[in-house]
């Protein structure tokens, strides 16, 4: 009887092991491939005082992050985050973390995507807006620019080059334009308030293959201030095609890969091991029945 029991246990252990490998394999693969996205934070509300911005994960994917004393016109760098949902909260600068936030929002980060979470509008109707940033390579060696309009002094403005080419028209306060593909180069950019008033200019170096946000805010001197912020960058020409990095000396006689290329054999080996375990479980379970028969 004790032999039977131990055999039964062995059968259970074998099958449990096999099943646990089946269970564990996809989980491990998912963890290994866990994707990231990016979030940056911005204060774009002209009459909202400085704030402390909190970034936290309801699932504990990250510890709570705090950015202290963020003022109008401030834009953080991108934070690399595991995909998932995050809470963004703003409190008056120096306020206790236990007090109710002035404003909160939720941002869902998808793999490979980037977001700007910005406090926008006037303080009276302050909102947290989630702006998706399109960081994909601009086509044909060009650059990409969009306007983030946070000037209340010029509630509607037009953006053009000194040569007269329009980049965006009628851009309203608290809005963001789509990215626009532009020729790379050093541009003089004019910002013209729609209702008249003094235009502002800036020199903007848009480099090939790079992605920018032109952020327009009210400057303390009563003018407009614009900053060209690189969202995603790269350098040099784009190499054409793949890379020729092999002489063939370790290719098998049939021309097959040196090391690793087929991913399938590894999974086949795992499957083979599972099959063996499963069959062993069946064999042991079958043998369990013999003592009872005899």
């Amino acid at each position, binding site marked *: 009887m004790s032999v039977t029991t131990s055999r039964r246990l062995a059968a259970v252990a074998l099958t449990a092991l096999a099943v646990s490998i089946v269970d564990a394999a996809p989980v491990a693969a998912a963890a290994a491939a866990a994707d990231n996205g990016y979030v940056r934070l911005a204060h774009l509300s002209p009459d909202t005082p400085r704030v402390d911005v909190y970034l936290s994960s309801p699932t504990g*994917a990250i510890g709570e992050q705090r950015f202290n004393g963020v003022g109008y016109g401030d834009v953080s760098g991108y934070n690399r985050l595991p995909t998932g949902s995050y809470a963004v909260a703003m409190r008056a600068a120096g306020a206790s973390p236990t007090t109710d936030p002035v404003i909160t929002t939720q941002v869902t980060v998808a793999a490979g995507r980037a977001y700007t979470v910005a406090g926008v509008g006037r303080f009276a109707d302050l909102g947290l807006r989630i702006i998706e940033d399109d960081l994909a390579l601009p086509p044909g060696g060009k650059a990409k620019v969009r306007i983030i309009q946070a000037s209340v002094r010029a509630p509607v403005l037009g953006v053009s080059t000194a040569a007269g080419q329009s980049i965006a028209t009628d851009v309203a306060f608290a809005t963001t334009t789509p990215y626009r593909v532009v020729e790379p180069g050093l541009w003089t950019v004019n910002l013209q308030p729609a209702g008249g008033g003094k235009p502002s200019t800036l020199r903007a170096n848009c480099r090939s293959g790079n992605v920018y946000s032109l952020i327009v805010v009210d400057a303390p001197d009563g003018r407009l201030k614009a900053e060209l912020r690189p969202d*995603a960058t790269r350098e040099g020409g784009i190499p054409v095609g793949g890379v020729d990095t*092999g002489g063939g*000396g370790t290719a098998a006689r049939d021309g097959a*890969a040196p090391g690793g290329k087929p991913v399938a054999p590894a999974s*086949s080996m795992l499957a083979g091991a599972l099959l063996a375990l499963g069959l062993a479980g069946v064999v042991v379970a079958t043998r369990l029945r013999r003592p009872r028969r005899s």
Partner: protein
Amino acid sequence: MISRILTAAATLWRDRRRWLLPGVTTLVALAVTGTGWWAATDGPLAGLRQGKPTTWHDTGAAKRVHTSTGDWSAAPDPTRVRIPEIGVDSPLDPLGLDAKGALEVPTNYDHAGWYADGTPPGEQGPAVIVGHVDSQSAPAVFHRLYQLVPGDLIEVARGDRWVRFRVVSAQWYPKAQFPTALVYGPTPDAQLRLITCGGQFDPASRSYLDNLVVFAVES
């Protein structure tokens, strides 16, 4: 007849604890084996079915948000790459583009090279390091590149400091369908790509048909 079938079924069900677990396990194993066989015999694209390539990943540094580390813009050009996990410790030769616009490769099979017109490692953008998988007769500097897994460390020397990267994914691509925008496109942080060859060797062009790209982020 029907009652005999029902009786047999009832017996089978009563004894289910004997066969259910091993049986199901075997079926699952057979299914997995079948999938593996299918993938293995599906030609050069087999590896690409493992999932869509992604640019950015968690590197396992849980509970920690990564923004940017040091400012490397004033640092000297990179001179060396170390990958402890696969025993790589190599000088870095500067590379440019050839007459056809393709990325040059190191002339020395035992040296890795970096795309010197591109983003320097540690600065925002996709830095690129390439190395041969083999020479005409022997393994070369990146022969074991395929063994890298997410989380593995890659270090690049700039002056007397080392920029540290962590592997996030490794993907095979046919050279004829090289994902240029994914590999060389702009990024919101400091990233690194390691590139070598693999797959079928085409004796006519004296070239492998696939590229292996390892994606990494500064950590």
